[in-house]
């Protein structure tokens, strides 16, 4: 049994123009201690997936079906009080917008201290020291002063780091991090990613890292799940995915990112590979492959039949009619 098992997850929103199938039949596992990255363009359903794992997706307007099992227990049936206990104890969370998870009426120190006291049976004074230590770890200047401030007194970047300190302080079994470093500078991002790696090696936390930055994926994760239009289109180890991406969407993403060093030495400027067009409107019914309209390899069949997610090589899944399959693959 994996730590987290998501099965046939459906997240739908009723909108004026129809039902938005934000997530449409998503299944994946996260093993204890594992770092899984989820990538894909904005709107492909990454955040709503993470919110549903945390029990934070508002329903309505959302409608969730399928299963989300944490340590074998289906969280979709769990009571609100059980979810509240899980969050911040066994499941930590970091969002791009820190105010989503910070409590405005408690000081930063109280919020970090709370989870430290819960887990380590620390005294009030010890918890405060630990909170200061955590704030220093995440790079907040003058932590002795900041520990007694409220979230609104901190700048955006500092709130982000305070939230990370809170999430890390409870040594969670699973950390759900939704674009945790997107709003940060690269030098701070490097520090935060190091912190998260530390947490993994010291506490054995599993991490579900949602990001659109393929560089962050390559440096941080072990396995990657590529989402497009609410579906999983490819899944593989990080090494396999970057070496032999099998889905045209993944191939397109990898070619579209400018890479340090890649345009040096060229006489004329190099053109980036574009993925033409944009993601489809999910409130309209999709026929065939969701990527067909943008895909350079699409044939007639792609517009008609939705390609199944298949094993194309050991541990490497892709949903494309034309993704190459290794001979030995099941």
């Amino acid at each position: 049994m994996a730590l987290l098992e998501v099965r046939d997850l459906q997240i739908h929103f009723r909108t004026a123009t129809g039902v938005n199938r934000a997530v449409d039949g998503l299944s994946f596992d996260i093993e204890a201690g594992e770092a899984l990255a989820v990538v894909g363009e904005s709107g492909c359903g990454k955040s709503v997936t993470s919110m549903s794992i945390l029990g934070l997706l508002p329903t309505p307007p959302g409608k969730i079906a399928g299963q989300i099992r944490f340590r074998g227990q289906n969280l979709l049936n769990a009571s609100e009080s059980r979810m509240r206990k899980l969050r911040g104890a066994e499941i930590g969370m970091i969002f791009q917008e820190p105010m989503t998870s910070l409590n405005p009426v408690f000081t930063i120190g109280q919020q970090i201290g709370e989870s430290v006291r819960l887990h380590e049976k620390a005294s009030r004074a010890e918890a405060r020291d630990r909170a200061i230590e955590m704030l220093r770890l995440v790079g907040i200047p003058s932590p002795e002063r900041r520990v007694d401030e409220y979230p609104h007194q901190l700048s955006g970047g500092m709130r982000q780091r305070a939230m990370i300190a809170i999430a890390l302080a409870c040594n969670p079994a699973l950390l759900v991090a939704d674009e945790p470093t997107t709003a940060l500078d690269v030098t701070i991002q490097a520090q935060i990613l190091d912190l998260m790696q530390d947490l993994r090696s010291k506490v054995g936390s599993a991490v579900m890292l949602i990001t659109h930055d393929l560089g962050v994926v390559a440096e941080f994760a072990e396995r990657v799940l590529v989402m497009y239009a609410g579906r999983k289109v490819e899944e593989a180890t990080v090494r396999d995915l970057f070496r032999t991406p099998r889905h045209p969407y993944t191939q397109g993403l990898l070619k579209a990112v400018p890479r340090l060093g890649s345009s040096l030495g060229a006489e004329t400027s190099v053109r980036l590979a574009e993925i033409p067009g944009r993601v489809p409107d999910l409130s309209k019914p999709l026929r065939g492959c969701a990527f067909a309209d943008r895909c350079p390899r699409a044939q007639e069949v792609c517009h008609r039949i939705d390609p199944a997610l298949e094993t194309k090589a050991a541990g490497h899944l892709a949903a494309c009619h034309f993704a190459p399959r290794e001979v030995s693959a099941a």
Partner: protein
Amino acid sequence: MTDAPHLIEVRNLVKRFPIGGGLFSRSHKVVHAVSDVSFHIARGETLSLVGESGCGKSTVGKCLARLIPLTEGEITLDGQRIDGLSRSQMKPVRKRLNVVFQDPFSSLNPRMTVEDLVAEPLRSHGMARTRAERHARVGDLLEKVGLAREAMARMPHQFSGGQRQRICIARALASEPDIIICDEAVSALDVSVQAQIINLLMDLQKDLGLALLFISHDLAVVEHMSDRIAVMYLGRIMEIADRESLFRHPRHPYTRALLSAVPLPDPEADRDRAVLTGDVPSPIDPPSGCFFRTRCPMATDRCAAEVPALRDMGAGHMSACHYAEDV
């Protein structure tokens, strides 16, 4: 020298923001947003400004576009001083120098059609007199940025982020400027769309001979786009060099640290990272000497005592580090 002046020359630009203290406060605190910044941009060239947030990139852009007044310094356009011009004197200058911002939504009036939005600069600079002329010109501009002519009848909210950025670019091109300042213009876009907009900017630049001041915190994008790069830290230029030279042989410890912090989209890349510790100091009370010294792995007593001058390390590669030779 008898060289013709560069398209843009910025000399010793200083921008301070007074802060804190209401009407009766005695505090005279100031934010040192930009301190003694000098650079030039040649016609058709792309100069990028990079550095961590708060280092003064946007402030330089806004001073250059005269959206905010400068505290000290000189700015010339084709040799003509523009830093002291009045509103009405600025009008012909504005025609030649436009800005595209990060957030294409807030920079487009949601109640105007795309046609009105793109026609506005044409009208204000008297570039197309009749309605029909303007209509035709707007259509051409939309096509130039990769949108359909028919898009002009629609409202901004009917477009995706990437398409809205195309509308902003069409608007910036309308007055046929010599230079466009792009302030994080591709930063909010998904990679696939970002690639479209970067290619568009580079194509337009080639076709129209545009100069760009490209402001970004993304070093990979900057490497891709730029002819030359200025690296800023806490309001000062730490290093300025052409692309090859800066990325192959950074001569400032800050540039080196920035480059090594960029995550590479290659899990098999083998690199030792010099992770910078700590945070950027407050621009209200910057450190003595070299602004970078509080985070610099090479700092010595000299760095606290003396402000390092921006020195030419050869072939126009300038570094503001006492130990640039050893970096």
